C-alpha cells in the first residue's frame, strides 16, 4: 500500500512539475529579420528530395506566396558608407530562380535598366534560396545622396503574377557633413578677414573627418588696388556637427588699400576629401561681395575752416591811381582784377563839354570770424563781411578832356558806401579721393544800399546801372576764379580732413555725403 502511495506520489509530482520545468521563459527581443535569416541559414535543412507537390499543396503555396520582408539596413549611415536592401520572398514555386526580381528598376538578373531619381553605387547583390520556396536577397550599395530615402520598391514577377513591396518607413537615411566656409570681416582697428570652416548642423548631420584647405583671393570691387591671394591648409581635422575649425586671419593692410572701395570681392575655394569611394578631393568655389560697414556722421558747423583756411581770405577792391583790385588767399593764389571806371559824357546845349569819371576804392573785407561759416543753401556757406568805413568808396572827378591828366576833383561829390556789402560764397561739397572737397562755388556780391545822401540823382542812377554791377560782377568772377583753382580746392580738402581728424573722426575714406538742411551728412570707412 505504501509503495503504491509512494509510486502514485512520484507520478503526481512528475505529471505536475514536468511541464512547469519544461517551460522556457525568454525575455529576449524579437529577432530582426537578419537574425531570423541567419538562424534559418544555420538550421537550413538539407534540400529535400523534391517530391512533386500535390495539387492541393501547390494551390496552398501559391495562395501564401508573397514578399515577407523588405527593408534597408543599417540606417542611418554616414555618407560614403554601405547599406543593404534585404528582402525575403516566399515563392509560389520551388524554383524561385525563375523569378525576375526588380529593385526599383534594377533587375537582379544583372541587367541595369534605368537610373532612378537617386544615385548610388552597387557594391554587391545576391540572392539565395533558403528553403525550396523561400528566396532571400541582399542588394548592397553606397548611396550618393544625403538625407532620407524610403521609396525603394521591389517587384517580383512570376508568370502572370506580380508581387510588390515598399520599404516605406524602413528606408535608409544618409547623414552627411555640411561644410561651410565662413568669413568674418573686421574693420576696426585694422581691416582684416577671418576664414574658418564650420560643419553646420542640419537634419542629417554627420561629422567630417579629413583634410581641409582654403584658397582665397580678395580684391576691391568694382575696382581698386586691393588684390590679395593666399591659401591655408587646415590639415586633417575632425569636425563633429556644429563645430568649426580654428580661424585664420588675413590682415588687409594698409587700410587705405582695403578701404579704397566700398566693397570687397572674396573668391574662395574650399577643398575637402569626400569619403565616397572614388570621389576624392572635392572643391566648392564661391564668390561674394562684402560691403564695408560705413559709419554715418554729421557736421553742422565746420567753423575750423575759418582758422585753417578761409579766415585768411582777402578782398581788396580798389581801382584808384592805377592800382588793381584783388582777392587773395595768401600762399595759394591771388586774382587781380580791374573794375572799369564809370564814365559819363557831359553835354550842355547839345555840346560835348567833358567827362565825369568815377571809380571804386578802399573796399576791404573785415575780419572773418567763426560765425561766418554755416551750412545751408546746399553747401558750406561763407559770409564775408565787408567794411565800408574810411574814405569815400566811390570817387568822382570831372575830366574836361577825358584822357586823365588834369581833373577837377571838386566838380562832383564822392559817394560813401554806408550800407552792407554782402559777399556770400557757397562751396558745394563733393567727394574727391575720399575727402570732402567741393566741385564749384557760387559767389554773390551785393551792394545793398544805394541811397547816398548828397549824391546827385543822375550819379546814383549811373552808379546803380553801371559801376555797382561792375563791382559786383568783377568781384564775383575773381573770387570764383580764385576759389575754384586746384590749389585752393586742395587746401580746402586738406583743411576739411584735418578738421574732421581734430574733431575725433577716424576716417580712412569718406564714401558718401549729402547736405541736408543745416548739416553735412557723410558716411565713412
Amino acid at each position: 500500500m505504501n509503495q503504491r502511495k509512494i509510486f502514485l506520489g512520484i507520478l503526481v509530482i512528475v505529471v505536475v512539475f514536468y511541464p512547469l520545468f519544461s517551460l522556457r521563459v525568454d525575455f529576449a527581443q524579437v529577432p530582426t529579420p537578419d537574425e531570423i535569416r541567419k538562424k534559418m541559414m544555420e538550421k537550413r535543412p538539407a534540400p529535400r528530395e523534391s517530391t512533386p507537390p500535390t495539387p492541393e499543396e501547390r494551390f496552398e503555396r501559391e495562395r501564401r506566396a508573397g514578399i515577407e520582408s523588405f527593408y534597408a539596413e543599417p540606417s542611418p549611415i554616414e555618407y560614403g558608407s554601405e547599406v543593404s536592401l534585404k528582402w525575403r520572398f516566399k515563392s509560389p514555386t520551388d524554383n524561385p530562380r525563375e523569378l525576375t526580381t526588380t529593385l526599383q528598376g534594377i533587375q537582379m538578373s544583372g541587367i541595369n535598366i534605368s537610373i532612378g531619381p537617386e544615385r548610388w553605387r552597387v557594391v554587391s547583390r545576391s540572392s539565395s534560396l533558403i528553403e525550396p520556396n523561400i528566396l532571400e536577397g541582399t542588394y548592397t550599395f553606397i548611396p550618393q545622396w544625403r538625407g532620407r530615402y524610403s521609396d525603394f520598391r521591389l517587384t517580383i514577377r512570376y508568370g502572370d503574377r506580380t508581387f510588390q513591396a515598399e520599404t516605406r518607413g524602413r528606408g535608409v537615411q544618409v547623414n552627411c557633413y555640411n561644410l561651410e566656409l565662413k568669413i568674418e570681416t573686421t574693420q576696426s582697428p585694422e581691416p582684416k578677414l577671418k576664414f574658418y570652416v564650420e560643419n553646420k548642423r542640419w537634419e542629417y548631420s554627420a561629422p567630417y573627418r579629413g583634410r581641409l584647405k582654403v584658397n582665397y583671393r580678395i580684391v576691391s570691387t568694382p575696382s581698386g588696388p586691393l588684390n590679395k591671394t593666399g591659401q591655408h591648409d587646415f590639415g586633417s581635422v575632425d569636425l563633429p556637427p556644429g563645430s568649426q575649425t580654428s580661424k585664420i586671419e588675413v590682415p588687409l593692410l594698409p587700410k587705405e588699400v582695403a578701404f579704397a572701395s566700398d566693397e570687397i570681392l572674396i573668391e574662395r575655394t574650399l577643398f575637402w576629401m569626400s569619403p565616397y569611394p572614388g570621389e576624392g578631393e572635392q572643391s566648392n568655389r564661391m564668390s561674394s561681395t562684402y560691403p564695408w560697414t560705413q559709419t554715418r556722421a554729421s557736421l553742422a558747423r565746420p567753423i575750423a575752416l575759418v582758422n585753417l583756411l578761409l579766415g585768411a581770405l582777402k578782398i581788396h577792391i580798389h581801382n584808384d591811381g592805377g592800382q588793381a583790385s584783388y582777392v587773395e588767399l595768401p600762399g595759394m593764389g591771388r586774382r587781380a582784377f580791374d573794375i572799369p571806371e564809370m564814365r559819363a559824357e557831359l553835354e550842355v546845349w547839345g555840346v560835348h563839354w567833358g567827362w565825369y569819371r568815377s571809380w571804386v576804392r578802399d573796399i576791404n573785407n573785415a575780419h572773418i570770424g567763426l560765425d561766418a561759416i554755416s551750412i545751408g543753401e546746399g553747401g558750406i556757406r561763407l559770409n564775408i563781411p565787408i567794411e565800408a568805413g574810411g574814405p569815400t568808396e566811390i570817387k568822382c572827378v570831372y575830366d574836361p578832356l577825358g584822357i586823365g591828366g588834369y581833373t577837377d576833383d571838386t566838380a562832383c561829390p564822392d559817394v560813401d558806401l554806408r550800407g552792407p556789402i554782402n559777399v556770400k560764397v557757397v562751396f558745394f561739397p563733393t567727394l574727391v579721393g575720399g575727402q570732402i572737397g567741393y566741385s564749384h562755388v557760387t559767389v554773390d556780391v551785393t551792394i545793398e544800399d544805394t541811397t547816398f545822401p548828397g549824391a546827385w540823382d543822375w550819379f546814383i542812377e549811373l552808379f546803380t546801372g553801371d559801376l555797382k554791377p561792375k563791382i559786383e560782377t568783377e568781384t564775383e568772377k575773381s573770387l570764383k576764379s580764385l576759389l575754384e583753382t586746384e590749389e585752393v580746392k586742395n587746401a580746402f580738402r586738406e583743411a576739411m580732413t584735418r578738421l574732421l581728424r581734430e574733431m575725433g573722426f577716424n576716417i580712412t575714406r569718406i564714401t558718401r555725403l549729402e547736405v541736408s538742411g543745416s548739416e553735412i551728412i557723410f558716411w565713412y570707412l
Partner: protein
Amino acid sequence: MVKQIAFVVIILCSMVYTLNTNSMAAEKIINIPIGTRFEKVGDFENLKLPDGSRIEMKTISIYDNVPIRDNIFGECEIRFYDQTGKVQEGKGYLIIDPAKGKLEGKKIKVPFDIKFLPSR
C-alpha cells in the same frame, strides 16, 4: 538951406531918371531847361520866353575843355526884349548846374541858366 534942398531934389531927379531910362544895369537870370530849342536867325540864336519876353544871342563862345569850376561854360552877347518890346543889350554868361543833370544813356544832359548883365 535952399542949396541943400536943391541938392536933394537933384539927386532924387537923377535917380528917377536913371530908373526910367534903365541906365543902371539890371541882372537877369534866365533858366534854360534841358531840350530847349533856339531859333537860329542869321547870327542870332533866338528864344521866346514863357512870359512873352525874348532874347537874341550872338557870338556865343563855349569854354571847351576847361575846368568846370564856377560852372560857367560859355558867354555871349544878348539882346533882351521885354514884353513891351523894349530892348536891352548886354552880356550873357552860360551857367550850368550839374547836379540837376539828367542821364540819357551815357550822356548827362544838364539845364543851364543865362545870366544876363545889361550894358549901360
